[in-house]
């Protein structure tokens, strides 16, 4: 009896955390809408706030900045607060500018890195929902439609146990992302002031 109660409590907490599971029809409709939204994106600029949650900390660590994405796979992730740090994903390479010190890493030969990069870019663009390397479950709550992606690769599972993508109910565009580690510590990214298909400076993805 006690075990059943604990189980029910656990299950109800689970429902509360991600919302109610979508039916197959609902999931198909949502997925088609999200894919259409993603397809229409040529580029995207947005502000973001990143919260790093760790169970032993009294409050999450907060960072913020701007992000620019250009289809198919260019991404600028620029932290401005509390320090200046930018990272550009482009042509299988990662370019870093750490408070003025520039460096680059070729990740083309590192499968794990490549997959993590793909995951970061895909999280932003919304292009991960037809990715075979995840098993995906769909949920809905009062604010968002939620896709929970569980990586199939053991190499990725060491770093990320699951990825939760929160989609705006009306536009079906990505609004928030949560990246969970196996320890259940997680990184929560909230996008704000999002603009799509704007005119981008041609030097946006240059490590300047």
């Amino acid at each position: 009896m006690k075990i059943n109660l604990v189980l029910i409590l656990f299950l109800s907490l689970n429902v509360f955390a991600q919302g109610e599971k979508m039916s197959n029809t609902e999931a198909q409709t949502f997925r088609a809408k999200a894919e259409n939204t993603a397809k229409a994106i040529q580029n995207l600029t947005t502000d973001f706030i990143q919260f790093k949650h760790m169970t032993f900390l009294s409050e999450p660590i907060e960072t913020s900045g701007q992000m620019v994405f250009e289809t198919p796979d260019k991404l600028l992730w620029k932290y401005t607060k509390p320090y200046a740090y930018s990272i550009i994903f482009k042509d299988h390479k990662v370019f870093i500018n750490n408070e003025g010190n520039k460096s680059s890493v070729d990740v083309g030969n590192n499968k794990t890195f490549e997959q993590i990069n793909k995951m970061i870019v895909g999280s932003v663009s919304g292009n991960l929902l037809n990715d075979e390397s995840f098993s995906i479950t769909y949920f809905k709550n009062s604010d968002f439609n939620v896709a929970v992606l569980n990586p199939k690769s053991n190499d990725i599972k060491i770093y990320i146990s699951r990825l939760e993508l929160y989609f705006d109910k009306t536009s079906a565009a990505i609004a928030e992302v949560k990246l969970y580690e196996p320890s259940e510590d997680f990184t929560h990214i909230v996008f704000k002031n999002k603009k799509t298909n704007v005119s981008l400076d041609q030097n946006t993805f240059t490590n300047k």
Partner: protein
Amino acid sequence: MIKTLLQISSLVFLLVSCKSYVPLHAELTNNELKVVENEYFSDPAKDYVYRAKIEAYGNEFGGIFILKKVQDDLHRIVLTTDFGFKMLDVNVSQNTFQINFIIEQLDRKLILNTLEQDFKTLIKPSYEVIETYESPLSQIYKAKEGNRNYFIFKNKETGAIEKILQTTRTKEKVSFGFDGKNNTFADSIFVNHKDLNLNIYLTQYNQ
């Protein structure tokens, strides 16, 4: 005659080079304090969060360094990338070093031994003083742990620990510099290894 002179100079050289290490401009003084306390990282209510820059053998990488006192003699130390991915997650006390998570690239004996020693020095709460020195700006306390000596430099005006120097009997090994207005939460920390090409810079993370 020349042979004798050479022998004497070799002896002098040996005597000089084997002289026990004493910090520059420091003079031995009365030993009044028996124990010197290190209050950095001592508050269990605080999240000690720093932006880290690590220079190792020509490579440089950054990230976030997080330290928290989780029990009386136990600290949790985590190093993440700026994206938030964990690179290292350990529980450290003066007698234990338990790895909760480590990325493959850092999982090397030399790196782990070095980090273990550095982390243990950073969180060591107190030292038994065996000698006291004085320099124009600092009161310097000497302690001994195993085969290492420690020189703890306290600013005469503020009373804050400004440097902990780890030495062998004759030379400097690692220097831990602390800078800031607060005796318990340093604004910045600089760990400089004298015999390894490794420097760690930590700057307090102001959200």
